[in-house]
């Protein structure tokens, strides 16, 4: 098993490196002139040259890549073209906000999904089961911003239970942070809970068909104990895998949700930077998102290797 995990981790490192190459060279190989694209009407010979100098455009491509990557590993991404401050300083508070939101959503979504999935499996074919399945299909299909605005419309604008905008900053205390981030969190939960719930239900049902479960029934155990004690542990591998994959999806869903609730996170920063053609910030945000996404994917694989009893105890 250790060998398998080591292989997977090595492959993951190669993927991370390849992703950095892909992100950097996508912006570097195309002949676009970021200096004049950014400055637009205000482009003069001087400030165009200043931006080119900031981007080190006169250096060879490969050197620029190695500089960028070695900086990125140390957490330095050069200066923002808009504010001329270090990108890392601007990213730090936003990175914290985004992780706060993502972890908040994950802590609610994972237990909820497992609970709903197990309940649906126990009551397979019942109204509850069908209702949960229809709900899952609906939330999988609709875009994040529809759910977000719907919640905002009812819970914030009409009933005024929650604030309309999630204006948090560094000094916001923890509990009001939870309150301000509640609507974006619920939106994200609705988006990711359906997949996890479906997978939990499917894998529990698959295990429920095996003979040892029938044995457990025959010795007179109540249904919930059969499911929770006998079926769930063996159904865990695919569930853990799907949870990690959906957490990776969370990282991407956060971009749209932050925009809906004007939540000051990395997603907003990336979108602003793309529309202003602020390359260093786009590269930094793109790389961080990609690293988290790929990292969670690797984690999903490692966890599913570890939770597979056949791989855990080799003959």
């Amino acid at each position: 098993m250790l060998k398998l995990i080591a292989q997977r981790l090595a492959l993951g490192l190669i993927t991370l490196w390849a992703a950095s190459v892909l992100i950097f060279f996508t912006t570097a190989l195309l002949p676009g002139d970021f200096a004049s694209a950014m400055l637009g009407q205000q482009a003069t010979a001087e400030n165009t040259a200043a931006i080119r100098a900031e981007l080190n455009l006169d250096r060879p491509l490969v050197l620029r890549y190695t500089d960028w990557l070695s900086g990125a590993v140390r957490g330095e991404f050069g200066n923002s073209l808009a504010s001329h401050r270090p990108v890392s300083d601007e990213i730090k508070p936003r990175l914290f906000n985004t992780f706060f939101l993502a972890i908040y959503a994950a802590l609610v979504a994972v237990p909820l999904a497992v609970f709903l999935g197990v309940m649906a499996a126990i009551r397979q074919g019942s109204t509850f089961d069908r209702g949960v399945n229809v709900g899952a299909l609906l939330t999988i299909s609709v875009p994040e911003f529809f759910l977000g605005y719907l919640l905002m419309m009812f819970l914030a604008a009409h009933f005024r239970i929650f604030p309309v905008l999630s204006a948090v900053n560094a000094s916001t205390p923890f509990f009001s942070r939870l309150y301000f981030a509640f609507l974006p969190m619920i939106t994200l939960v609705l988006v990711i809970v359906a997949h996890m719930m479906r997978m939990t239900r499917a894998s529990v049902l698959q295990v429920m068909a095996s003979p040892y479960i029938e044995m457990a029934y025959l010795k007179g155990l109540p249904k919930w104990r059969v499911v929770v004690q006998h079926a769930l542990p063996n159904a865990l591998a695919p569930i853990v895998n799907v949870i990690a994959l959906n957490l990776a999806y969370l990282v991407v869903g956060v971009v749209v949700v932050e925009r809906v609730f004007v939540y000051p996170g990395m997603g907003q920063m990336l979108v602003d930077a793309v529309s202003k053609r602020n390359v260093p910030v786009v590269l930094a945000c793109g790389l961080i998102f990609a690293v988290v996404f790929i990292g969670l994917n690797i984690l999903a694989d490692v966890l599913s290797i570890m939770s597979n009893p056949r791989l855990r105890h080799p003959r």
Partner: protein
Amino acid sequence: MAVTDAKVPAKKKAPGIRLFGHKVPFSAQIGFLIIAFNLFLMIFAPFLAPYGEGIVPADLQKWANPSAEHWFGTDAIGRDILSQLLYGARLSIGLSLITTCIAFVVGIITGFSAAILGRWADVALSRFADLILSMPTLIFCLVIITAVMANESAFVAATGISNAFFEGMVIVGVIGFLYAVPVFRLSRAVAMNIVALEYVEAARLRGENIWWVIRKEVLPNAIPPLVAEFGLRFCFTFLLIASLSFLGLGIQPPYQDWGSMVNQNAQVIFLGKPMPLFPAGAIALLTIGVNLVVDWLLSVYSRAHGENA
């Protein structure tokens, strides 16, 4: 079980409607109805819309609430939202269809070639696909758009096309490329399965040339999973274009698709006005409809061929 007699005519009265010899369940019927409704609105938008495209009605009202004259209300400059929605359908659905078709043509050609040619072509294409698929699509899409859009003024000046056309082309091109990758994966896997079957081997031993084998032997048997994939891919494309426009990075004013309508009307949701919910709801409705049909197609296919086909 799958019904095999394909010649049962589709009649309303019989218990269940049939398509390709399979019973269409109620959920899929709703799905087809939603899709047909959207296509109808899209095609006949000029006849159905109460006001012209981008026209500000004479009774200028900004942010008017829904009423008899303006069913869905009006937007920031007084345009009728229902009319904008109907015209926006053409951009939203039309662009998504074009993009999905591009993704399919590219993905299927490369996928089938990889499966049949094998060796280094297969290895190179598959590794590249793995890399692209390991990236989060929306994020990578944003990075590419930053790079391509920096060429906008130079390209527009050189070719004389309009900025809006360039932006549309970029969206279609970038998303078409990104979503060609999963189609490549699927069609390669499907073709691999089929190529290993006896009748294909027989055709090759007969000395048929490779394109004949693809057209007559591989493609017909690959159609069911590819149709389901088309529906699914359309949903993803449709949602991705809508998200880009929503983020302000897709379709630019004065043109409006449903995503940019959500973006431009979003400010009044704070006042409790429902304007952004109409385009967002339209997006949600169509994706739900397509998903209902896709669910049915997938279940038909897995029933007839076994889960892992």
